[in-house]
């Protein structure tokens, strides 16, 4: 083939053709250079051992590990194709970024049906992963090294995104979604931003020692956001099966929690500020369950028979609780043993707030 192309090329040089350009505006004449290459095609199980650009030429069905990246400075373009594994082969991986491989970029395709990881980034590797869909794998994306995932999706995996970092490595997951997995986003020492988890059979997010910002969890069977030692803001949780946000040793601010049986469980010195909780309105619904020295302040709670249940050393100050007539009229703040609760003013019949107490909680 190569010889034929070269022969055609040189023959065209010695043939005098028309020199006048065609009429009309300039239009594309071929494939953009950026898509031509240079590059190395991959059409089977591969271990990449040299820097460069690689790309799939078709869908691949692989029995075993599909692509191992052992070199740094590798770009792997999946070109919209799919790598299919054998779900019966234990621990096989779709793409494995091996230890020490840095400057790796993977983008634009699908990986499915590997018993192990769809994409794994080893602990001393560094990778950027964009617009990749993983489904039906044991772990969709498992990051132990410095990784960033952007615009990726995990569906129907055991774990969607699993982050296992430590204080020395930055792992960031941005604008990704996890649908229908066992657990959507999980792990420690990761930053999750603008991510969405829906319909996962356990938790939407189960995260420790990291940050969760501007993320959504809807219709997960257990908890929308389960947070330990996490700084979280601008969360949106709706219709999760048990709890909207469960936070331990965490800080959660400026978030909306809607229609879960328990909106927020706050424990272990957690701080909850400026959140808006709407309960289910059903008997037993709790807006915020605070204990173990959690602090709840400046939150607004509505439509829960128990708006705030303050127990075991919780601090509850400066909150507002709606007693909307005709829906749930028994909204209340429960003051449990050892808790500190600002004075509760019941102003549900209306009027002017005249209290000078900044810690007062207001029923309206």
């Amino acid at each position, binding site marked *: 083939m190569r010889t034929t192309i070269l022969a055609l090329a040189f023959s065209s040089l010695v043939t005098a053709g028309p020199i006048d350009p065609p009429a009309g505006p300039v239009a594309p*004449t071929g494939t953009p250079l950026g898509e031509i290459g240079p590059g190395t095609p991959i059409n089977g199980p591969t271990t990449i051992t040299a820097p460069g650009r690689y790309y799939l030429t078709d*869908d691949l069905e692989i029995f075993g590990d599909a692509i191992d990246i052992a070199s740094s400075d590798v770009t792997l373009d999946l070109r*919209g194709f799919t790598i299919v594994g054998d779900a019966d082969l234990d621990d096989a991986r779709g793409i494995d970024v091996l230890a020490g491989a840095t400057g790796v970029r993977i983008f634009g395709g699908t990986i499915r049906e590997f018993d192990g990881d769809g994409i794994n980034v080893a602990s001393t590797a560094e990778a950027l992963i964009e617009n990749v869909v993983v489904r039906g794998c044991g772990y969709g994306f498992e990051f132990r090294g410095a990784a960033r995932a952007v*615009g990726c999706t995990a*569906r129907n995996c055991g774990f969607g995104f699993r982050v296992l970092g430590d204080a020395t490595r930055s792992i960031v997951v941005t604008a990704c979604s996890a649908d229908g997995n066992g657990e959507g986003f999980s792990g420690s020492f990761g930053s999750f931003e603008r991510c969405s988890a829906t319909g996962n059979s356990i938790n939407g997010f189960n995260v420790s020692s990291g940050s969760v910002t501007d993320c959504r969890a809807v219709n997960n069977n257990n908890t929308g956001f389960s947070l330990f030692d996490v700084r979280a803001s601008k969360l949106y949780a709706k219709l999760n099966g048990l709890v909207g946000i469960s936070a331990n040793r965490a800080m959660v601010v400026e978030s909306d929690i*809607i229609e879960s049986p328990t909106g927020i469980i706050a424990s272990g010195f957690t701080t909850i500020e400026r959140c808006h909780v*709407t309960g289910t309105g059903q008997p037993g619904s709790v807006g915020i369950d605070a204990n173990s020295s959690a602090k709840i302040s400046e939150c607004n709670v509505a439509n829960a028979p128990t708006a705030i249940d303050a127990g075991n050393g919780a601090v509850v100050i400066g909150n507002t609780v709606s007693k909307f007539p005709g829906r749930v009229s028994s909204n209340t703040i429960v003051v449990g043993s050892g808790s500190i609760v600002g004075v509760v003013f019941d102003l549900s019949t209306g009027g*002017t707030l005249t*209290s000078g107490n900044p810690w007062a909680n207001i029923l*309206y």
Partner: protein
Amino acid sequence: MLDRIVAVLAAAAAVPVSHAQINPPIGPVGPSLSEIDQIEPRRAVSAGPITTPGSYYLSGNASSIGSGVIIAVGGVTLDLAGFTLTGDNNGPNDFGIWVTANSDEPVVIKNGTVKSFEGGGVEVVNDAQPVLIHNVSAVRNGFGFRIAGGATLTDCHALNNAGNGFEIGDPNLPGRISGLERCTSTGHDVGFRIWNARLLACRASGATGTGFIVNDGTLVECIANTNGIQGFNGRDTSFVACAATSNGNVGFQLIGGSIEGSRTRDNQIGFEISTQAHARECVSLQDTTGATVSFSSLFERSSVIFPSTRGILASNNAIVLDNHIRVGNNVDAITVSGTGSVIGREVTFSSPGNTSYVKPVGANLIY
């Protein structure tokens, strides 16, 4: 195929005219070009159905009688390559790109324009597959984009389509969450009609109706201006750092959910919140009425600047605390109607100057 060969020839032909080293390198001749099918493993497509998974690209502008490209299977990437698919504007069931696949394999559509399809620009019928749409414009179609859930749209633009700009998601929860970033709608009945999605940095302008109608959404840094009725209309939705300017009726109308750090200007009503909604740290500037707060909603720590008729109207168990209200002559700062509302003490300063006054808890400062 011909185009691809031409591309290779062009690249090869460029070699002799450059003043490069003319001596061949030492050693055996090695491969210097990729095979044709390696260079371009994708398949060219113009209009018609795609029934086999794979990667496709548009090789030039294309016209269509009927729908343009119909993607009937998952696992398809369609690159419009900067070209335009144009319909004949004659067929209510004709779509520029019509994804009928019901698969769990993803569909990717990118880099081009669809216009003049009477049915609509881009329609994705099912939410089974993840859908990624990037850098696609829909112009003068029946609607712009109608996408079932689980889709990601980035840098997409709807311009002057006959119906709505974007219709995203499934009204029946639980649906899959969609994400839109940096998308714009200009014209239309409704700019964005959204269920269960998060939007970042999107903009709706010039709709005859409402800029954004959103159920169960999260909107961050979005803008609605010069829409005929409302800028934003939300239910159980979170708005963060959004802005509504010069809309015909309401800047933000919200039933349930929250609005934070957002601003309005030159609307009839800046913020209209009801049914246990919550607005905080917002700014209304020069709206006719700054805010209406009703049915157990909370409006707090916000500023209402120079409303032309009324600052805040509170009714039916509303609660209004810790706001700053700057009003001109003969304009009510806070009006209470109905029963059960709680209003922080109104503290009025009628003339400027330093004060040692200690603000009571929850007080609304009027000046």
